[in-house]
């Protein structure tokens, strides 16, 4: 067993607390802001003592923002739904494509396999703006601009290489003989892939899916250029809070809180698989 002295334990506790405060304080502050009016937010000095209001959330949900210059229409709920559709569909499509591909790259050394895998990864190196302009033109010509299909297709640039490379590593860590043992006992290659390899790589697949979901959810540039109002995700939709009569900090904070929620829920859900994967012990033979 590993023993630690009391001093060491206190020091560790203090350091962890500092790190947590540093990282969580902005989120905490945003949470507070989301229950404040714009006036309360902007007063100097700021105070954590205030009368909470649900107005920000109400205006997001009803889609009506009352400002000094009148009532503004907000598409926040539609944006949230768009974000969900785009992220979930992109990750799902990527999983279907990238998990078998990752397996192939892990198991079979075919001609140019390394080059192909690297090319797929290199899509992540290029700045999105590089491809955006030609993409916009092409998408408009073939009618994919401002469609879910088109956006999900472009989102593959974000999600597919990530899943491919993470999951490939997990497959490489599984001894091929574990599959061989199953196949020689009378099962096909496909069954061994589905019944043995994929379940054993599940922690990696869960981690990759979670990460790529977060990246897809946070994407801004692709959606900004390729989607118009009714297909915009929250990242782009949040621009609407910068209104003619000022920036609506309260609504922005509430929007941030709401849009963090799905990612947070997914992380908590995936955590089970991540931890389970760790507790299964070494998969290597």
């Amino acid at each position: 067993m590993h023993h630690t002295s009391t001093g060491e334990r206190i020091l560790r506790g203090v350091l962890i607390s500092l790190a947590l405060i540093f990282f969580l304080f902005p989120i905490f502050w945003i949470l507070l802001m989301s229950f404040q009016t714009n006036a309360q937010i902007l007063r100097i000095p700021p105070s954590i003592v205030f009368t909470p209001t649900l107005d920000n959330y109400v205006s997001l949900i009803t889609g009506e923002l009352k400002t000094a210059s009148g009532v503004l229409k907000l598409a926040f709920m539609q944006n949230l739904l768009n974000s969900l559709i785009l992220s979930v569909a992109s990750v799902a499509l990527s999983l279907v494509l990238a998990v078998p591909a990752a397996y192939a790259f892990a198991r079979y050394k075919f001609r140019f396999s390394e080059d192909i895998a690297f090319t797929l990864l290199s899509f992540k190196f290029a700045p999105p703006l590089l491809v955006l302009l030609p993409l916009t033109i092409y998408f408009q010509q073939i009618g994919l601009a401002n469609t879910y299909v088109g956006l999900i297709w472009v989102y593959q640039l974000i999600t597919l290489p990530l899943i491919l490379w993470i999951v490939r590593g997990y497959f490489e860590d599984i001894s091929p003989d574990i599959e061989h043992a199953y196949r020689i006992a009378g099962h096909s290659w496909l069954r061994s892939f589905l019944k043995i390899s994929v379940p054993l790589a599940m922690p990696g697949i869960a981690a990759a899916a979670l990460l790529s979901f977060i990246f897809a959810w946070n994407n801004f540039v692709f959606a900004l250029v390729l989607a118009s109002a009714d297909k915009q995700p929250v990242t782009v939709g949040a621009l609407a809070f910068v209104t003619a009569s000022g920036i609506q900090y309260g609504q922005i904070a509430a929007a941030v809180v709401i849009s963090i929620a799905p990612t947070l829920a997914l992380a908590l859900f995936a955590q089970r698989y991540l931890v389970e994967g760790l507790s299964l012990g070494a998969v290597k033979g």
Partner: protein
Amino acid sequence: MTASVVLDSVNKIYGARNPRPIYAVRDFSIEIAPGEIVALLGSSGCGKTSTLRMIAGFEEVTKGEIRIGDRRIDALAPAQRRVAMAFEGYSLYPPLTLRENIAFALKAEKLDNAETARRVEEIARLLELGPYLDRYPSTVSAGQQQRASLGRALVRKAELYLLDEPMGQLEPQLRAVLRGRLKRYLREHGLTAILVTHDQTEANALADRIAVMEGGVLQQFASPAELKRAPANLFVGTFIGEPPMNVYRVKPTVADGRLSLSAAGAELFGYAPGTVSDAVLDRVRGREEVIVGVRPADVRVGASGAPAEVVSNQWIGDQTHLESTFPGGVIVATIQDRFRAKAGERIHVDVPADRLHVFSSEGSALSHGRELAAPRPAERVAA
């Protein structure tokens, strides 16, 4: 259920289209009778595991044919070959207990639960796995994992059992016990098995015949006793036997029926007229050089023979290992009794004609033991 196995000129070539292809296995041919246990023996990289994996279907056969019974299997998927295999790295499924792992192998047979449980219990008893059956692979020792992996192969009903280093991780005491049990189990059920090992004790104990491999080439395929008595070449001669055979490059001289084997002008071994057969004399006469091999147990230490000086003397509990220098270099002798001689002491070493192995200077066998002495027909000599 059990069947014969034929490997007919099987080749495994990596990069066959490259300018310099690598031959992992070259023209490997053996025939295995139903119910026979065969060991593929060799050092690592000799091609024995590649051969086993070709039979299992995890390596493609570049050229040649593999048949089980009258079925040609080298193009079939592993699932259709009706073979069972125990893997060297155990390869148990981490999320399943040992019991589930063994039972998992029976899934494709679609047995009812009672029959599955009965078969798993039987194998667990054989391999002394009872207390660990409900534990997970990561929580048991390497030896226990290895036994579970062996159990997963044996529990199935297959026509051929492939065992890749099945005992490598076992504790020495258990290894001897399980070797006996495994052999009895295979025999009782009349199972055909191919075992890959680098441990000659294991090969000798388990196998009816041993295929000695080196550099992807089959060196000799024979019973353990035959391998020891008449190694086909110098490689087999020195590979089989512990401690290894003493080997000397010597110049043979035949004069008036007397055979003298000398190195650097000094006679190592001399044989009086009549003690060496004419056939053998004919075979060595005129050669500039031959290689003689002497097993340590066949060296006579006494008053006659070449002069030698003791370098070290070890009593290892049931025999003496005596290392000496003599005109040929170093000679190791094993003596069944306790032999009292200190380092530096002068002795004489000799080898009876019927214990000498003679190889050509390229290493192929010319004559073995008794053939050298007794007037036996020359055709008996292994190629």
